[in-house]
C-alpha cells in the first residue's frame, strides 16, 4: 500500500470534513422543506364546510335517517382527522324532535372533544334558528343569540340535560303534564324517565363514572312526546360485556352489531348485565307503561340496532341500523286522552 504524505493526509481529512458538512446541510434543508410542506398541507389548517341536511330527522324513514347519519359521520371523521369544521345550516328547512335531540348531544360532545374546531353559520329559516337558539346549540357553536324566541312550535318544547340521576330539572315539565293528564299517568311517565336516567348512570357511563344525558319533551293536548339520549356505551355493548351461553351459540358475541335489535329487545324483556334479580326492571316497566297507554309508541335505538313497540299496530319489532348511533336514543309517544287531571 502506498504511504501518504502528511500533506496528502491533511487534504483527504479536509475533503471528508467538507463532504460531511455538505451532507448535513443538505439533510437539514430537506428536513426544513418537509416541515414547511407538511405545514401547508396540514389538515389542521383546512376548513371543511359541511351542509346540515334539509330535514334534521332521526325517528324517520330509513333514507332520511341514513342521510342524517352520513352527515354526523362526515363531521366526526373530519374532526378526528384534525380538520376544522363549519356546519352550514343554510339549507336546513325543518328540525324534527329526535334530530334536535341528537344535534344537542353531538354538538356538546364535539365541542368538548375538539375545542375551537367547530363553527357554524346562522340558519336561513327563522323557525330553525329559533329552535337551535332555544336549545343552546347555536351558542355552543359560537354564534350569539339574535332571535326573540316566540313561535309556539319552539316554546312548547322543553329540553333538559344533566350528569347524574337527578330529576329535579325535569320538575316543571312533569308539573305541566300532571295538570293535563292527572297524577297517575304523570307519575308513570316520571317513573320511566327517572329509571332511564338511572340506566344511563349504571350502564351507559358505568366505566367513566358518569356522563351526560339530554331530554327533549313536549305535551300537546294529551299527547306526550319524550325523547332521551346518551352518548355512552350502548345497550348491546353493555349486555355483551357479560355474555350468556345463547350469545355464543348464536354468534352475537363475534358478529357484533348484527343482533343488536334482538339484544335491545332482550333488555326490554328484563335482561340485565348485572345478572342480579332485583335489577333490570327499568326497560320492562317503560314498555309496560307504553302498552297501557292508548296507541303508545316506544322506540329504542342503540348502537346498530333498534327495538320498537307500536300500540296502534300492537306489534313489537327489531331491526338493524345502516349507520350506528353513538349511545342510546329512547323515544316515547303517548296518547293519554283517556286520563283525567
Amino acid at each position, binding site marked *: 500500500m502506498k504511504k501518504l504524505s502528511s500533506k496528502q493526509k491533511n487534504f483527504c481529512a479536509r475533503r471528508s470534513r467538507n463532504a460531511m458538512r455538505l451532507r448535513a446541510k443538505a439533510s437539514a434543508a430537506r428536513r426544513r422543506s418537509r416541515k414547511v410542506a407538511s405545514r401547508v398541507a396540514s389538515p389542521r389548517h383546512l376548513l371543511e364546510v359541511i351542509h346540515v341536511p334539509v330535514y334534521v330527522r332521526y325517528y324517520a324513514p330509513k333514507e332520511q335517517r341514513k342521510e342524517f347519519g352520513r352527515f354526523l359521520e362526515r363531521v366526526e371523521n373530519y374532526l378526528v382527522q384534525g380538520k376544522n369544521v363549519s356546519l352550514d345550516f343554510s339549507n336546513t328547512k325543518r328540525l324534527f324532535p329526535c334530530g334536535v335531540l341528537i344535534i344537542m348531544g353531538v354538538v356538546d360532545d364535539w365541542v368538548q372533544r375538539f375545542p375551537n374546531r367547530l363553527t357554524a353559520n346562522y340558519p336561513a329559516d327563522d323557525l330553525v334558528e329559533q329552535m337551535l337558539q332555544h336549545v343552546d346549540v347555536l351558542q355552543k357553536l359560537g354564534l350569539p343569540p339574535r332571535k326573540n324566541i316566540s313561535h309556539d312550535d319552539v316554546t312548547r318544547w322543553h329540553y333538559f340535560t344533566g350528569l347524574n340521576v337527578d*330529576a*329535579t330539572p325535569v320538575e316543571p315539565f312533569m308539573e305541566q303534564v300532571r295538570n293535563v293528564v292527572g297524577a*297517575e299517568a*304523570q307519575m308513570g311517565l316520571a317513573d320511566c324517565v327517572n329509571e332511564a336516567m338511572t340506566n344511563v348512570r349504571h350502564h351507559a357511563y358505568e366505566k367513566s363514572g358518569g356522563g351526560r344525558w339530554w331530554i327533549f319533551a313536549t305535551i300537546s293536548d294529551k299527547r306526550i312526546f319524550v325523547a332521551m339520549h346518551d352518548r355512552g356505551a350502548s345497550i348491546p355493548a353493555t349486555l355483551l360485556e357479560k355474555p350468556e351461553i345463547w350469545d355464543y351459540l348464536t354468534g352475537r358475541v363475534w358478529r357484533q352489531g348484527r343482533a343488536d335489535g334482538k339484544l335491545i329487545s332482550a333488555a326490554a324483556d328484563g335482561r340485565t348485565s348485572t345478572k342480579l334479580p*332485583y335489577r333490570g326492571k*327499568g326497560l320492562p*316497566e317503560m314498555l309496560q307503561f307504553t302498552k297501557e297507554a292508548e296507541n303508545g309508541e316506544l322506540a329504542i335505538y342503540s348502537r346498530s340496532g333498534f327495538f320498537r313497540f307500536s300500540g296502534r299496530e300492537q306489534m313489537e319489532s327489531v331491526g338493524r341500523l345502516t349507520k350506528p348511533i353513538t349511545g342510546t336514543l329512547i323515544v316515547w309517544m303517548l296518547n293519554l286522552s283517556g286520563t283525567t287531571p
Partner: protein
Amino acid sequence: MDAQLVRYNAMTIVLNIAKQFSRSPAGRYVTDGPFSGQAFRENLLLPALRQSETVEVQLDGALGFGSSFLEEAFGGLVREAGLKAETLHQKLRISSKLKTYEQRIWHYVDDAKPKG
C-alpha cells in the same frame, strides 16, 4: 341529609317523601344522585324504623320515583339492612292514593334476599 322525623303520635313516625326528602326522588345508590333510594333508606327510613314502633311512609306529593329508587329504599331494608320482611309488614305502613306503588313496594320487600 339530616333526618327530620315527624312523630304522628307516641308510636308512629310519619315520613312524607315529597316534603322531607324530594319531590323527584330518583336513582338507586348515593353515587347516582342527591335523592337516591339508598340515601332515603339510610338517612330517613332506617332511623325512623329504629326509633319508632311503626313508620308511615307517605308517597303522595312526589312527582315519580322509578323502580330503582323504590327497590333500593324498601327492598334494601331486607337486603342491605338485614331486616325481616315479616317485621316490616308489622312496622311499616305505605300510604298512597295510587295502590300500584304500595303493591310494588311490598313486592320488592317480599322478593328481597338478605346479603350473604
